[in-house]
Protein backbone atom coordinates (compact mmCIF):
# COMPACT_ATOMS: atom_id res chain seq x y z
CA UNK A 1 0.00 0.00 0.00
CA UNK A 2 1.32 3.41 -0.86
CA UNK A 3 0.48 6.37 1.33
CA UNK A 4 2.19 8.84 -0.97
CA UNK A 5 0.36 12.15 -0.91
CA UNK A 6 -2.65 10.74 0.95
CA UNK A 7 -2.18 12.82 4.10
CA UNK A 8 -0.52 16.10 5.00
CA UNK A 9 0.78 18.02 7.98
CA UNK A 10 -1.32 21.18 8.32
CA UNK A 11 -0.12 22.49 11.67
CA UNK A 12 3.04 22.20 13.74
CA UNK A 13 4.03 24.01 16.92
CA UNK A 14 6.36 23.86 19.85
CA UNK A 15 5.30 24.51 23.41
CA UNK A 16 7.52 26.74 25.52
CA UNK A 17 11.00 25.25 25.35
CA UNK A 18 14.25 25.17 27.26
CA UNK A 19 13.55 25.65 30.95
CA UNK A 20 9.91 26.40 31.68
CA UNK A 21 10.15 26.53 35.48
CA UNK A 22 8.83 24.27 38.19
CA UNK A 23 5.08 24.92 37.93
CA UNK A 24 4.18 23.61 34.50
CA UNK A 25 3.46 19.94 33.87
CA UNK A 26 4.14 17.94 30.69
CA UNK A 27 0.39 18.07 29.98
CA UNK A 28 0.44 21.87 30.27
CA UNK A 29 3.12 21.95 27.58
CA UNK A 30 1.04 19.63 25.41
CA UNK A 31 -1.88 22.02 25.92
CA UNK A 32 0.22 25.02 24.83
CA UNK A 33 1.50 23.27 21.72
CA UNK A 34 -1.98 22.01 20.82
CA UNK A 35 -3.52 25.50 21.04
CA UNK A 36 -0.76 26.86 18.82
CA UNK A 37 -0.91 24.12 16.22
CA UNK A 38 -4.72 24.18 15.91
CA UNK A 39 -4.60 27.94 15.54
CA UNK A 40 -1.98 27.65 12.82
CA UNK A 41 -4.04 25.03 10.98
CA UNK A 42 -7.30 26.94 11.38
CA UNK A 43 -8.94 23.95 13.03
CA UNK A 44 -10.96 23.56 16.23
CA UNK A 45 -10.24 21.10 18.99
CA UNK A 46 -13.55 19.44 18.14
CA UNK A 47 -12.23 18.61 14.67
CA UNK A 48 -9.64 16.23 16.12
CA UNK A 49 -10.80 12.61 15.95
CA UNK A 50 -7.45 10.80 16.03
CA UNK A 51 -4.99 11.08 18.93
CA UNK A 52 -1.36 9.98 19.05
CA UNK A 53 1.12 10.32 21.91
CA UNK A 54 3.98 8.69 23.77
CA UNK A 55 5.44 9.65 27.13
CA UNK A 56 7.88 8.79 29.88
CA UNK A 57 5.46 10.44 32.33
CA UNK A 58 2.09 8.95 31.47
CA UNK A 59 1.69 5.20 31.35
CA UNK A 60 -1.37 5.52 29.11
CA UNK A 61 -0.40 8.64 27.20
CA UNK A 62 -3.32 9.07 24.82
CA UNK A 63 -5.73 8.68 27.74
CA UNK A 64 -3.99 11.38 29.77
CA UNK A 65 -3.64 13.72 26.78
CA UNK A 66 -7.22 13.11 25.65
CA UNK A 67 -8.57 13.78 29.11
CA UNK A 68 -6.53 16.97 29.62
CA UNK A 69 -7.39 18.42 26.22
CA UNK A 70 -11.00 17.24 26.27
CA UNK A 71 -10.57 15.23 23.09
CA UNK A 72 -12.57 12.03 22.59
CA UNK A 73 -10.82 10.32 19.68
CA UNK A 74 -12.30 7.55 17.59
CA UNK A 75 -8.76 6.46 16.74
CA UNK A 76 -6.05 6.30 19.43
CA UNK A 77 -2.41 5.23 19.08
CA UNK A 78 0.12 5.25 21.92
CA UNK A 79 2.89 3.49 20.02
CA UNK A 80 5.91 3.70 22.29
CA UNK A 81 9.35 2.91 20.95
CA UNK A 82 11.36 5.80 22.27
CA UNK A 83 12.16 9.06 20.54
CA UNK A 84 11.19 7.72 17.12
CA UNK A 85 7.59 7.13 18.27
CA UNK A 86 6.32 10.41 16.89
CA UNK A 87 7.59 9.76 13.38
CA UNK A 88 5.84 6.42 13.69
CA UNK A 89 2.70 8.28 14.79
CA UNK A 90 2.86 10.36 11.61
CA UNK A 91 3.17 7.17 9.55
CA UNK A 92 0.31 5.47 11.42
CA UNK A 93 -1.86 8.61 11.28
CA UNK A 94 -1.53 8.74 7.50
CA UNK A 95 -2.51 5.07 7.28
CA UNK A 96 -5.50 5.58 9.58
CA UNK A 97 -6.63 8.64 7.63
CA UNK A 98 -6.25 6.78 4.34
CA UNK A 99 -8.31 3.91 5.76
CA UNK A 100 -11.04 6.31 6.86
CA UNK A 101 -10.54 5.52 10.56
CA UNK A 102 -10.03 9.19 11.43
CA UNK A 103 -9.77 12.46 9.55
CA UNK A 104 -7.88 14.92 11.76
CA UNK A 105 -5.03 13.44 13.79
CA UNK A 106 -3.24 15.22 16.60
CA UNK A 107 0.24 14.06 17.60
CA UNK A 108 1.35 15.55 20.94
CA UNK A 109 4.29 15.36 23.32
CA UNK A 110 5.54 17.22 26.38
CA UNK A 111 8.28 16.88 28.97
CA UNK A 112 9.51 18.95 31.90
CA UNK A 113 12.61 16.89 32.50
CA UNK A 114 14.91 19.88 32.93
CA UNK A 115 12.78 21.75 35.44
CA UNK A 116 11.94 18.43 37.04
CA UNK A 117 15.51 17.65 38.05
CA UNK A 118 17.72 17.94 35.02
CA UNK A 119 18.01 14.25 34.38
CA UNK A 120 16.51 12.14 31.65
CA UNK A 121 13.11 10.91 32.76
CA UNK A 122 12.93 7.38 31.51
CA UNK A 123 10.39 4.62 31.84
CA UNK A 124 13.07 2.15 30.70
CA UNK A 125 13.15 -1.08 32.60
CA UNK A 126 16.56 -2.53 33.45
CA UNK A 127 17.55 -5.79 31.78
CA UNK A 128 18.72 -8.37 34.34
CA UNK A 129 21.48 -9.21 31.87
CA UNK A 130 22.77 -5.63 31.71
CA UNK A 131 21.89 -3.88 34.98
CA UNK A 132 24.56 -5.58 37.15
CA UNK A 133 27.30 -3.87 35.13
CA UNK A 134 25.87 -0.37 35.72
CA UNK A 135 25.90 1.07 32.21
CA UNK A 136 24.68 4.69 32.27
CA UNK A 137 21.45 4.60 30.27
CA UNK A 138 21.39 5.53 27.45
CA UNK A 139 24.81 7.15 26.89
CA UNK A 140 26.88 4.04 27.62
CA UNK A 141 24.95 2.06 25.02
CA UNK A 142 25.67 4.66 22.35
CA UNK A 143 29.27 4.79 23.59
CA UNK A 144 29.60 1.04 22.99
CA UNK A 145 28.39 1.52 19.43
CA UNK A 146 30.80 4.42 19.00
CA UNK A 147 33.71 2.30 20.20
CA UNK A 148 32.85 -0.31 17.61
CA UNK A 149 32.43 2.22 14.80
CA UNK A 150 35.84 3.67 15.63
CA UNK A 151 37.39 0.20 15.74
CA UNK A 152 35.94 -0.98 12.43
CA UNK A 153 36.07 2.20 10.39
CA UNK A 154 38.64 4.43 12.03
CA UNK A 155 36.07 7.05 12.97
CA UNK A 156 37.66 9.65 15.25
CA UNK A 157 36.54 11.84 18.13
CA UNK A 158 37.40 14.84 15.94
CA UNK A 159 34.90 13.66 13.34
CA UNK A 160 32.24 13.23 16.00
CA UNK A 161 33.04 16.72 17.27
CA UNK A 162 32.37 18.05 13.77
CA UNK A 163 28.77 16.89 14.20
CA UNK A 164 28.39 18.87 17.42
CA UNK A 165 29.98 21.95 15.87
CA UNK A 166 27.74 21.79 12.78
CA UNK A 167 24.66 21.47 15.00
CA UNK A 168 25.80 24.52 16.94
CA UNK A 169 26.32 26.54 13.75
CA UNK A 170 22.70 25.82 12.79
CA UNK A 171 21.51 26.61 16.32
CA UNK A 172 23.11 30.05 16.07
CA UNK A 173 20.58 30.76 13.30
CA UNK A 174 17.60 29.56 15.37
CA UNK A 175 16.27 31.97 18.02
CA UNK A 176 14.57 29.05 19.80
CA UNK A 177 17.79 27.06 20.23
CA UNK A 178 18.78 26.50 23.84
CA UNK A 179 22.52 26.99 23.30
CA UNK A 180 23.82 29.40 20.68
CA UNK A 181 27.32 30.33 21.84
CA UNK A 182 30.43 29.48 19.89
CA UNK A 183 31.66 25.90 19.85
CA UNK A 184 34.86 24.45 18.41
CA UNK A 185 36.10 20.92 17.80
CA UNK A 186 38.64 21.51 20.57
CA UNK A 187 35.85 22.46 23.00
CA UNK A 188 34.17 19.13 22.34
CA UNK A 189 37.39 17.14 22.63
CA UNK A 190 38.27 18.86 25.91
CA UNK A 191 34.84 18.53 27.49
CA UNK A 192 34.20 16.21 30.41
CA UNK A 193 34.20 12.52 29.49
CA UNK A 194 30.90 10.81 30.35
CA UNK A 195 31.12 7.33 28.87
CA UNK A 196 34.13 6.94 26.62
CA UNK A 197 34.51 7.77 23.83
CA UNK A 198 31.56 10.15 24.30
CA UNK A 199 32.09 13.37 26.23
CA UNK A 200 29.38 15.66 27.52
CA UNK A 201 29.39 17.74 24.31
CA UNK A 202 28.78 14.58 22.27
CA UNK A 203 25.48 14.24 24.15
CA UNK A 204 22.16 15.91 23.49
CA UNK A 205 20.76 18.58 25.75
CA UNK A 206 18.41 17.99 28.64
CA UNK A 207 15.61 20.53 28.21
CA UNK A 208 11.91 20.97 28.80
CA UNK A 209 9.64 21.15 25.82
CA UNK A 210 6.76 19.81 23.88
CA UNK A 211 5.22 19.90 20.46
CA UNK A 212 2.07 19.12 18.57
CA UNK A 213 1.33 18.36 14.94
CA UNK A 214 -1.93 18.00 13.05
CA UNK A 215 -2.26 15.59 10.14
CA UNK A 216 -5.28 15.33 7.89
CA UNK A 217 -6.32 14.04 4.49
CA UNK A 218 -4.82 15.69 1.42
CA UNK A 219 -8.28 16.91 0.36
CA UNK A 220 -9.01 18.61 3.65
CA UNK A 221 -5.45 19.91 3.94
CA UNK A 222 -5.88 21.97 0.77
CA UNK A 223 -8.78 23.87 2.38
CA UNK A 224 -6.76 24.98 5.42
CA UNK A 225 -4.62 28.01 6.20
CA UNK A 226 -1.10 26.72 5.63
CA UNK A 227 0.35 25.14 2.51
CA UNK A 228 0.12 21.38 3.13
CA UNK A 229 3.28 19.37 3.72
CA UNK A 230 2.60 15.90 2.38
CA UNK A 231 3.79 12.57 3.65
CA UNK A 232 5.42 11.02 0.59
CA UNK A 233 6.68 7.82 2.14
CA UNK A 234 7.45 6.13 5.43
CA UNK A 235 8.97 2.99 6.86
CA UNK A 236 9.72 1.59 10.29
CA UNK A 237 11.85 -1.23 11.65
CA UNK A 238 13.31 -2.48 14.91
CA UNK A 239 15.59 -5.38 15.67
CA UNK A 240 16.39 -5.14 19.38
CA UNK A 241 15.64 -3.38 22.65
CA UNK A 242 18.89 -3.88 24.59
CA UNK A 243 22.27 -2.93 23.18
CA UNK A 244 23.67 -6.40 23.98
CA UNK A 245 21.08 -7.80 21.54
CA UNK A 246 21.92 -5.44 18.66
CA UNK A 247 23.24 -7.72 15.90
CA UNK A 248 25.94 -5.34 14.61
CA UNK A 249 26.65 -2.21 16.63
CA UNK A 250 27.59 -0.23 13.54
CA UNK A 251 24.41 -0.86 11.51
CA UNK A 252 20.89 0.13 12.51
CA UNK A 253 17.44 -0.95 11.32
CA UNK A 254 17.35 2.34 9.40
CA UNK A 255 18.86 0.23 6.61
CA UNK A 256 15.35 -1.26 6.36
CA UNK A 257 13.11 1.68 7.28
CA UNK A 258 14.78 4.12 4.88
CA UNK A 259 14.52 2.02 1.68
CA UNK A 260 10.82 1.46 2.46
CA UNK A 261 10.28 5.18 2.83
CA UNK A 262 12.28 6.07 -0.28
CA UNK A 263 10.46 3.49 -2.37
CA UNK A 264 7.03 4.70 -1.29
CA UNK A 265 8.03 8.30 -1.91
CA UNK A 266 9.81 7.56 -5.17
CA UNK A 267 12.86 9.52 -4.11
CA UNK A 268 16.55 8.88 -3.51
CA UNK A 269 18.82 10.46 -0.93
CA UNK A 270 20.09 12.81 -3.66
CA UNK A 271 16.59 14.28 -3.98
CA UNK A 272 16.46 15.27 -0.30
CA UNK A 273 16.90 18.99 0.45
CA UNK A 274 16.74 18.86 4.26
CA UNK A 275 17.68 15.98 6.55
CA UNK A 276 16.24 15.97 10.05
CA UNK A 277 17.67 12.99 11.92
CA UNK A 278 17.59 12.14 15.59
CA UNK A 279 20.93 13.27 17.04
CA UNK A 280 20.78 12.04 20.62
CA UNK A 281 24.56 11.68 20.41
CA UNK A 282 27.10 12.72 17.79
CA UNK A 283 27.51 9.10 16.68
CA UNK A 284 23.83 9.06 15.66
CA UNK A 285 24.40 11.57 12.90
CA UNK A 286 27.41 9.65 11.59
CA UNK A 287 25.80 6.22 11.61
CA UNK A 288 22.37 7.33 10.46
CA UNK A 289 23.74 9.29 7.48
CA UNK A 290 25.33 5.99 6.42
CA UNK A 291 22.24 3.89 7.05
CA UNK A 292 19.97 6.44 5.33
CA UNK A 293 22.13 6.17 2.21
CA UNK A 294 23.85 9.56 2.18
CA UNK A 295 27.25 7.86 2.24
CA UNK A 296 28.69 4.36 2.37
CA UNK A 297 28.92 2.36 5.59
CA UNK A 298 31.99 3.45 7.49
CA UNK A 299 32.34 6.75 5.64
CA UNK A 300 30.09 8.76 7.96
CA UNK A 301 33.00 10.25 9.88
CA UNK A 302 34.68 11.56 6.77
CA UNK A 303 31.32 12.64 5.36
CA UNK A 304 30.53 15.02 8.24
CA UNK A 305 34.02 16.52 8.25
CA UNK A 306 35.06 19.84 6.80
CA UNK A 307 31.74 21.45 7.68
CA UNK A 308 29.79 19.45 5.08
CA UNK A 309 26.62 19.37 7.24
CA UNK A 310 26.96 22.89 8.64
CA UNK A 311 24.95 25.86 7.28
CA UNK A 312 27.66 26.59 4.71
CA UNK A 313 28.02 22.93 3.73
CA UNK A 314 26.65 20.72 0.98
CA UNK A 315 23.91 18.91 2.90
CA UNK A 316 21.48 20.62 5.31
CA UNK A 317 21.30 18.32 8.36
CA UNK A 318 19.42 19.19 11.55
CA UNK A 319 18.76 22.80 10.63
CA UNK A 320 17.11 23.57 13.98
CA UNK A 321 20.37 22.84 15.78
CA UNK A 322 19.17 19.35 16.64
CA UNK A 323 18.99 17.57 19.94
CA UNK A 324 22.59 18.59 20.44
CA UNK A 325 22.03 22.37 20.45
CA UNK A 326 18.36 23.27 19.89
CA UNK A 327 16.27 21.32 22.42
CA UNK A 328 15.99 17.74 23.61
CA UNK A 329 13.06 17.21 25.97
CA UNK A 330 13.57 13.50 26.65
CA UNK A 331 12.04 12.33 23.42
CA UNK A 332 12.75 14.63 20.51
CA UNK A 333 11.10 12.98 17.50
CA UNK A 334 8.16 15.36 17.13
CA UNK A 335 10.48 18.36 17.00
CA UNK A 336 12.19 16.82 13.95
CA UNK A 337 8.83 16.96 12.18
CA UNK A 338 8.18 20.56 13.30
CA UNK A 339 11.45 21.78 11.77
CA UNK A 340 11.03 19.79 8.54
CA UNK A 341 7.58 21.28 8.01
CA UNK A 342 8.86 24.80 8.63
CA UNK A 343 11.66 24.31 6.13
CA UNK A 344 9.24 23.02 3.49
CA UNK A 345 6.97 26.02 4.05
CA UNK A 346 9.88 28.41 3.73
CA UNK A 347 9.49 29.55 7.35
CA UNK A 348 13.07 28.81 8.38
CA UNK A 349 14.13 32.44 8.73
CA UNK A 350 17.88 32.83 8.85
CA UNK A 351 18.37 29.09 8.61
CA UNK A 352 16.01 28.53 5.66
CA UNK A 353 17.33 26.06 3.11
CA UNK A 354 16.70 27.80 -0.19
CA UNK A 355 14.05 26.12 -2.32
CA UNK A 356 13.55 23.16 0.00
CA UNK A 357 10.89 20.86 -1.44
CA UNK A 358 11.73 17.44 -0.01
CA UNK A 359 12.69 16.68 3.57
CA UNK A 360 13.70 13.46 5.25
CA UNK A 361 12.71 12.96 8.89
CA UNK A 362 14.35 10.09 10.68
CA UNK A 363 13.54 9.06 14.23
CA UNK A 364 15.74 6.84 16.35
CA UNK A 365 14.52 5.34 19.61
CA UNK A 366 15.84 3.31 22.51
CA UNK A 367 19.50 2.42 22.06
CA UNK A 368 19.75 2.54 18.25
CA UNK A 369 16.72 0.26 18.58
CA UNK A 370 13.71 1.61 16.70
CA UNK A 371 14.17 3.38 13.38
CA UNK A 372 11.41 5.27 11.60
CA UNK A 373 11.90 7.17 8.36
CA UNK A 374 9.47 9.60 6.74
CA UNK A 375 9.84 11.59 3.55
CA UNK A 376 7.91 14.86 3.41
CA UNK A 377 7.30 17.11 0.43
CA UNK A 378 5.64 20.26 -0.77
CA UNK A 379 2.72 20.41 -3.26
CA UNK A 380 5.27 20.38 -6.11
CA UNK A 381 6.51 16.90 -5.14
CA UNK A 382 3.24 15.01 -5.69
Amino acid at each position, binding site marked *: MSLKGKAALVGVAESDLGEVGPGLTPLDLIGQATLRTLDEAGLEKGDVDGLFSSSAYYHMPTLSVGEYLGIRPRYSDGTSMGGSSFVSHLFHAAAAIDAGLCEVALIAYGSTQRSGGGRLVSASEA*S*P*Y*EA*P*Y*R*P*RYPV*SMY*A*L*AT*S*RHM*HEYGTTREQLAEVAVAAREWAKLNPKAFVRDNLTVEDVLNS*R*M*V*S*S*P*LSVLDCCLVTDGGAAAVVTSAERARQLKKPPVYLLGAGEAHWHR*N*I*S*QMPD*LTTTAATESAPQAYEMAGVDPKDVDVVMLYDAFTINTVMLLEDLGFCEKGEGGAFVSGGRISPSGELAVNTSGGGLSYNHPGMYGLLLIVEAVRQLRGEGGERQVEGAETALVHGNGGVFSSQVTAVLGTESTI
Partner: protein
Amino acid sequence: MKELREESAPNETYTRYLGEGKLVFQHCTGCGRAVFYPRVLCPYCGSPSLEWRESSGRGAVYAATAIYHRDREPHNVALVDLDEGFRMMSRVEGIAAEEVEIGTRVYFEAREEEGGPVAVFVTEEG
Protein backbone atom coordinates in the same frame (compact mmCIF):
# COMPACT_ATOMS: atom_id res chain seq x y z
CA MET B 1 29.80 -30.85 25.78
CA LYS B 2 28.21 -32.03 28.99
CA GLU B 3 24.40 -32.26 29.10
CA LEU B 4 22.96 -29.97 31.73
CA ARG B 5 19.70 -30.46 33.58
CA GLU B 6 16.44 -29.01 32.31
CA GLU B 7 14.65 -26.28 34.22
CA SER B 8 11.47 -24.40 33.44
CA ALA B 9 12.32 -20.74 34.08
CA PRO B 10 15.17 -19.69 31.79
CA ASN B 11 16.46 -16.80 33.90
CA GLU B 12 16.35 -18.86 37.11
CA THR B 13 18.27 -21.69 35.47
CA TYR B 14 20.93 -19.31 34.18
CA THR B 15 21.28 -17.68 37.59
CA ARG B 16 21.47 -20.99 39.43
CA TYR B 17 24.33 -22.21 37.24
CA LEU B 18 26.07 -18.88 37.61
CA GLY B 19 25.82 -19.30 41.37
CA GLU B 20 27.70 -22.58 40.90
CA GLY B 21 30.42 -20.77 38.96
CA LYS B 22 29.23 -21.88 35.53
CA LEU B 23 28.43 -19.66 32.54
CA VAL B 24 25.66 -21.35 30.57
CA PHE B 25 23.83 -20.52 27.37
CA GLN B 26 21.19 -22.18 25.24
CA HIS B 27 21.91 -24.18 22.09
CA CYS B 28 19.07 -24.38 19.58
CA THR B 29 18.68 -27.91 18.27
CA GLY B 30 16.50 -26.50 15.49
CA CYS B 31 19.03 -24.20 13.81
CA GLY B 32 22.21 -24.91 15.73
CA ARG B 33 22.75 -21.36 16.92
CA ALA B 34 23.77 -20.23 20.38
CA VAL B 35 21.05 -18.26 22.17
CA PHE B 36 21.67 -15.63 24.84
CA TYR B 37 19.93 -14.28 26.92
CA PRO B 38 17.97 -17.39 27.87
CA ARG B 39 14.44 -17.74 26.46
CA VAL B 40 11.68 -20.28 25.92
CA LEU B 41 12.07 -20.19 22.14
CA CYS B 42 14.88 -19.58 19.66
CA PRO B 43 14.75 -15.98 18.40
CA TYR B 44 16.40 -17.04 15.13
CA CYS B 45 14.26 -19.99 13.99
CA GLY B 46 11.39 -20.08 16.50
CA SER B 47 12.12 -23.60 17.73
CA PRO B 48 11.24 -24.36 21.37
CA SER B 49 13.99 -27.00 21.45
CA LEU B 50 16.72 -25.25 23.39
CA GLU B 51 19.24 -27.16 25.44
CA TRP B 52 21.52 -25.74 28.08
CA ARG B 53 25.25 -25.85 27.48
CA GLU B 54 28.16 -24.71 29.56
CA SER B 55 30.37 -22.12 27.90
CA SER B 56 34.14 -22.48 27.79
CA GLY B 57 34.10 -18.98 29.27
CA ARG B 58 36.55 -17.80 26.63
CA GLY B 59 35.84 -14.87 24.39
CA ALA B 60 36.91 -11.49 23.12
CA VAL B 61 35.86 -7.91 23.82
CA TYR B 62 33.48 -6.71 21.06
CA ALA B 63 32.85 -3.18 22.36
CA ALA B 64 33.86 -1.23 25.45
CA THR B 65 33.21 1.97 27.34
CA ALA B 66 34.57 3.52 30.51
CA ILE B 67 31.97 5.32 32.60
CA TYR B 68 33.26 8.37 34.47
CA HIS B 69 32.26 9.59 37.92
CA ARG B 70 32.82 12.86 39.72
CA ASP B 71 34.00 11.22 42.93
CA ARG B 72 35.69 7.94 42.00
CA GLU B 73 37.60 6.09 39.32
CA PRO B 74 35.75 5.15 36.11
CA HIS B 75 34.24 1.71 35.70
CA ASN B 76 34.17 -0.37 32.57
CA VAL B 77 31.26 -1.92 30.67
CA ALA B 78 31.97 -4.25 27.77
CA LEU B 79 30.18 -6.46 25.31
CA VAL B 80 31.95 -9.81 25.11
CA ASP B 81 31.65 -12.29 22.23
CA LEU B 82 31.98 -15.80 23.62
CA ASP B 83 33.69 -18.41 21.46
CA GLU B 84 30.46 -20.44 21.28
CA GLY B 85 28.87 -17.61 19.29
CA PHE B 86 26.86 -15.57 21.76
CA ARG B 87 27.33 -12.04 23.07
CA MET B 88 26.72 -10.64 26.54
CA MET B 89 27.22 -7.45 28.48
CA SER B 90 29.79 -7.68 31.26
CA ARG B 91 32.85 -5.94 32.65
CA VAL B 92 36.54 -6.70 32.34
CA GLU B 93 38.37 -6.77 35.65
CA GLY B 94 42.01 -6.48 36.55
CA ILE B 95 42.74 -3.67 34.12
CA ALA B 96 42.05 0.07 34.23
CA ALA B 97 38.59 0.88 32.87
CA GLU B 98 39.98 3.10 30.08
CA GLU B 99 42.42 0.43 28.93
CA VAL B 100 39.96 -2.29 27.95
CA GLU B 101 40.48 -2.72 24.21
CA ILE B 102 38.31 -4.25 21.55
CA GLY B 103 39.65 -7.66 20.53
CA THR B 104 41.25 -8.41 23.90
CA ARG B 105 40.91 -12.10 24.80
CA VAL B 106 39.07 -12.54 28.08
CA TYR B 107 38.02 -15.36 30.39
CA PHE B 108 34.86 -15.75 32.49
CA GLU B 109 34.78 -15.68 36.27
CA ALA B 110 31.73 -15.64 38.55
CA ARG B 111 31.32 -13.04 41.27
CA GLU B 112 28.86 -13.03 44.12
CA GLU B 113 27.28 -9.59 44.47
CA GLU B 114 24.49 -8.12 46.53
CA GLY B 115 21.88 -8.77 43.86
CA GLY B 116 23.09 -12.32 43.17
CA PRO B 117 25.81 -13.97 41.08
CA VAL B 118 27.32 -11.95 38.22
CA ALA B 119 29.44 -13.03 35.24
CA VAL B 120 32.60 -10.96 34.79
CA PHE B 121 35.71 -11.38 32.66
CA VAL B 122 39.43 -11.14 33.25
CA THR B 123 42.13 -10.85 30.63
CA GLU B 124 43.47 -14.28 29.66
CA GLU B 125 47.03 -13.39 30.62
CA GLY B 126 45.76 -11.93 33.89
